[in-house]
């Protein structure tokens, strides 16, 4: 670096600098959970994401949160984000109106291995809001249904009111996707299965030599999903999970999302189970 360049002030283009994005639509999903469609204000902004990736949504003055992109990767201009109002930032997202502006950056993270699933049976096992990062997988499958074998969703929620995207289930089924839904606690309106989602494994048959499992939900649920899948001789290499940790930067610099040797934002959030087996589910690790 030359002496003069060293002394010049410089504007630093931070990789954490968001771009303005507009709320195009808000769709209430269930109590305390809505889906926000966001589009970059700049039409030249790069578009494109892979199923399982996430964005950082920034509300100036409040903070930034990591939210999975849950829409169709084939229409990447407008990206949907299903948000549960859990903390100060997500509650403020809940107060947004159509046409409001937020800061957005992304997409980040390692996606679901869609190519590996081609020609195979795909089992999507998910609980609660964990279905959000798997919805792009489902929508991608529908686009190219014949590229995949049998596609089966096992989906569970605590109560019938906690289930997401229920209005879409019929369309998914019409596209040749099996859906097996259950709830932990039923009410008088519920006519479906009752029980935690790993129990759904006992109601199905699967071809362990030709099945890939994609799972996202509470870590305790994924532990038992992995247990049930392996009990049916699905190899560790064929099980993929999406992990969640506190994140501040999404680019592997802030240190928050480490689990043992991995950074969830950089090497994850989607991991092959055999990659993280030694550290997955270790208490308070």
């Amino acid at each position, binding site marked *: 670096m030359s002496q003069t360049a060293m002394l010049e002030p410089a504007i630093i283009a931070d*990789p954490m600098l968001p771009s303005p994005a507009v709320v195009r639509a808000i769709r209430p999903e269930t109590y305390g959970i809505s889906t926000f469609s966001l589009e970059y204000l700049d039409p030249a902004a790069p578009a494109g994401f892979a199923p399982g990736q996430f964005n950082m949504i*920034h509300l*100036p003055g409040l903070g930034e949160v990591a939210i999975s992109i849950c829409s169709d990767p084939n229409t990447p201009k407008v990206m949907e984000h299903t948000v*549960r109002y859990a903390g100060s930032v997500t509650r403020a997202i809940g107060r947004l109106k159509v046409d409001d502006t937020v800061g957005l950056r992304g997409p980040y993270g390692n996606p679901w291995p869609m190519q590996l699933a081609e020609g195979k049976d795909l089992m999507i096992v998910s609980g609660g809001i964990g279905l959000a990062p798997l919805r792009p997988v489902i929508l991608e499958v529908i686009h190219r249904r014949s590229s995949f074998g049998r596609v089966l969703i096992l989906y569970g929620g605590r109560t019938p009111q906690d289930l997401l995207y229920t209005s879409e289930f019929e369309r998914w089924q019409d596209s040749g996707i099996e859906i097996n839904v259950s709830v932990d606690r039923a009410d008088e309106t519920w006519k479906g299965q009752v029980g935690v989602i790993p129990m759904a494994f006992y109601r199905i048959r699967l071809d362990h030599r030709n099945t890939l499992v994609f799972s996202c939900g509470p870590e305790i649920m994924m532990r038992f999903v992995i247990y049930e899948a392996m009990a049916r001789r699905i190899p560790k290499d064929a099980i993929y999970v999406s992990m969640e940790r506190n994140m*501040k*930067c999404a680019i592997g610099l802030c*240190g928050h999302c480490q689990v043992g*040797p991995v950074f969830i934002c950089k090497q994850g959030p989607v991991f092959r189970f055999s990659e993280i087996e030694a550290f997955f589910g270790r208490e308070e*690790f």
Partner: protein
Amino acid sequence: MVGSTAPRVSATVLLAKSVLQRVLDNLHEGGFQLIGPTVRDGAVILDAIRNISELPIGWSLEQKAGSSRLLRTHATDYFGCTVGPHSWKRYLFPPHLDLLIAHRNGEGWTFEPPLDDSPPLAFIGVRSCDLHAIAIQDDVFVNGAVRDPHYARRRERAFILVANCNTAATTCFCTSMKTGPRAPSGFDLALTELPESFVLEIGSEAGSNALAGVDWQPASAFDQGRVAQIMQRTERQIQRQATTSDLPQLLYDRIDHPYWEAIAARCLSCGNCTLVCPTCFCSTVEEHSDLTGASTRRTRVWDSCFILDFSHVHSGNSRPTIKSRYRQWMTHKLAAWIDQFGRSGCVGCGRCIAWCPVGIDITEELSALRSLGAR
């Protein structure tokens, strides 16, 4: 051979002690802000200096677990003090840094990156352990997939003058971590302090330029022999040891060991060790809004894995206990770091030992875990 011409790169020269001021003057005139060790409030810290008289002359540091005391000595060494609580990371990876300013424009927001008008920095008296710590932070901030442009700019412009250690504290264990006491490379200038002069290695073109107009003579074999002798003496002073050959697996094999509870019973989870550590790089972000809500500054600040909020997610906290947080820090520093970046995150500077309010000693805890066996 007296210095109207600057010595060539990789030469070793001898300087009269007072002549070091000329080197600092040259750097100052070249636009550098000088940062060096100086005594303040009963501790040796790093701060802006301009004159060699501001260096901690006549002081030495007595350090042990949970204690760091400055002692008056009769010595006239400029670099006789070992490392204090500050490390150079506070200049390359500042504790507070503006990342962006968001301005409200009508209904929406625009996001503006900040202007960095900070001067280039010259680090005066970098110890070998700390030089290795800078290289370790380079792995994190500039050698990975995503570069931190703030760190990169500060790092690229920094001038590094190393002071090889002619004394060691009882908390030092650089010989175990293979980071000292002598800096092998990666500096602009490296000095070793003799009683009446400095032996100076020229590590770069910038280092050579800093000697323009300075009186120097080539270091003789005898002078270089004295340097080697001093380094051997310092190495012999270092008593503390850490065995590293069985890492990272040693700690991975003890993730569920009950001994972590015994450490947690003493640990206050204050985060001092992470703040004084020259390699700890975790950060969080804060939003500072003005009263009208028209603009917001987003600031990156140091964070610590000992802070409860560090691991908060909506469904709870992934490290709710002190046991889990101490385990995270030590396992990351000594084990996971090797998987992540190909080398240990510990340089053996001993700061975390001296500045722990309850005197937890990472080298002792490592040996304790080793002797207790896998679990």
